[in-house]
């Protein structure tokens, strides 16, 4: 699974650290990092929570261009 750069960029736009985003979403920092590193495939529920906090759509954060 490829690294998720879109989340990192989106939280940078919001001036959020990984820790702050993890707390806002209600998950551990390790899980947030694993999602960004592409090591963990989150459920659709968790994807939606991340999108809601960052003000982005699922496509913006989780769609991979071929």
């Amino acid at each position, binding site marked *: 699974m490829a690294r998720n750069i879109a989340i990192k960029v989106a939280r*940078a736009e919001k001036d*959020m*650290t990984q820790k702050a985003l993890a707390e806002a979403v209600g998950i*551990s*920092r*390790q899980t947030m990092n694993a999602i960004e*590193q592409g090591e963990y495939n989150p459920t659709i529920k968790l994807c939606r929570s991340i999108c809601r906090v960052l003000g982005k759509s699922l496509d913006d954060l989780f769609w991979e261009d071929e």
Partner: protein
Amino acid sequence: MKKGKKNRLDEMQEQKMLRIEHNCCWLAFFGLFAVILVQLLYYGMEEAERFAGEWIVFMCMAVYIVAACIKNGIWDRRLRPSFQTNLYASAAGGLAGGFIRFLATYRECGDLWTALRIGGIVFLCILVVCTAVMSLGVFLYRKRVERLDAEAEMESGDEEGEETGGNGK
């Protein structure tokens, strides 16, 4: 499974399979625990070799669960890692252990006072040992979480406050 044969289960089936394996694991864990208790009550500590096999498997499962959870920075679904929680959990274990030892001793010698004393000593021993072991577990867990957080920080490449100022897409 990953390297060998292709997984024939879809996502939902995989989740259900994990759930089944999870239930099976806990059934085996508490089943072994119940078997050990029954044999302890029936044979007493003098014939502990009768259930040594069950005890070894039970302890292997317990050690694996604790070690794997700490390695992954996980403590418990509901309980917080604190001294107070450890004390309550140890007291509960101590009460159960003390009561079982009380029953086993009373069955062996028939003297209520002796059984109560031995039950009380076992309760205190379990309380102290479990509290100490669980406190060590909490200490190791906290160290591990700190390390995992530091690794996550290094991998993400962001220091606290580094991203302020935002860099667009």
